[in-house]
Every structure is written in C-alpha cells, then in structure tokens.
C-alpha cells in the first residue's frame, strides 16, 4: 500500500511537471510571431532596423519569462516535491 501511495505521489509530480511545461509552447509561438512582424517592419523601413531589433529583443525576453516560470515549477516538481511529499506521507504514517 505504501509503495502505491509513493507511486501516486511520484506520478502526480511527473504529471504536474509535464502539464506545467505546456506553458512553454506559448513563448515559442509568440516570439515567432513577433519576429515575423519585425521582418515585415524592417522590410518596409530598413532604416529602423536597430530600433525594431531592440524593441523585439526586449519583447522576446519578456515573453520568455512565462516559459521560465513554467520551467521553474516543473523543476521544483521533479526534483524537490517528491521528497517533500514522501516525507509528509512517512510522518503521517509514523
């Protein structure tokens, strides 16, 4: 029974980490769209290349933070959460 409980904890953590990483899809799509539009803008006004690149770089970095939050949650769920939950379970059993 204990093994089953630990298995459920580990499975839940792995599942949670996987689900958290779904948020990693968004920044990729967003950055792709931003760069595509920037290409269009630079094509129209090549003299603004520097400004457009700077603004886009900052935009991309901000968009990527969403993915980073998800990444950190996933890492915590994979590496730290299982130990904590198993300890709580062990303490509860006594």
């Amino acid at each position: 029974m204990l093994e089953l409980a630990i298995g459920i904890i580990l499975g839940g953590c792995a599942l949670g980490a996987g689900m958290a990483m779904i948020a990693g899809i968004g920044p990729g799509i967003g950055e792709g769209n931003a760069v595509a539009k920037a290409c269009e803008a630079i094509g129209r006004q090549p003299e603004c290349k520097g400004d457009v690149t700077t603004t886009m770089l900052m935009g991309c970095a901000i968009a990527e933070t969403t993915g980073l939050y998800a990444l950190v949650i996933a890492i915590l769920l994979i590496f730290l959460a299982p130990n904590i939950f198993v300890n709580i379970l062990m303490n509860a059993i006594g």
Partner: protein
Amino acid sequence: MPKIDKTVKNETIYILSFEIIFSLIMQSVFLIIGKWDITVLFGNLLSGSAAVLNFFLMGLTVQKAVRKDEKDAKNMLKVSQIYRTLLLFIIAGIGVYFSVFNTVAALVPLFFPRIAIALRPLFMKKNNNDSENIEK
C-alpha cells in the same frame, strides 16, 4: 562565426550589468539573513551565467532571423526557443539536484533579466532627456 550585431552586443551588456547588480543584492540579502555559504555563490554563478547566455543566444537568433523571410524567421525562433529552454532546464536541474548549489540561488537569477527589462523604461527616459538637453 557570424559578426555580432551592435544592438545585440549593447543589450547583452545591459542585461549582464543588471545581472551582476542583482546578484550582488541577492548575495547581500543572503549575508544579512545569515544563510550565506559558498553554495549560494556557486548557484548564483551557474544560473546567472545561464540567464545571460540565454539572452545572448536569443539575440543571435533574432539577428539571424530578421534577415530571413517571415516563415523561416518564425520557425527559426521556435526551434531556438526549444533548445534554449532545454539548456535552461538542464542548468536549473543541475542547480537544484546537486547540493553544491543552493536551490534558491540557482533559480532566482534566471528572472533577473526580466526585472532589468522592467526597469529599462526609466533609463530610456533618462537617456532621451539627456539627448534632448544636448540638442537644446
């Protein structure tokens, strides 16, 4: 190796300088609360360098992508983002898994570039005011 664009270089230097400033602040906070040890420094170095490297690689990709057509640029950024996330996952994983690195110090510096960008409008305003004063 492709020539690095001036914009990418400048922005990376900006992010790097803020990363160093915030890292120093974080180290002092650890010192003040009495939790500082060498693992904090190692964790900070690991993930601080990863955060700057991530930004620099993104800059290089953007620099290459703006020379391509829209569809290729889109795909290039998506692929780059996957590889960079994988890189960060490995580095943050190392930081959390091995006890040589402090967990908090190995995760927090990943968000410093975001704070640096949030503070950017303040500096841009100051620069604009300076240039306006020079013009006058």
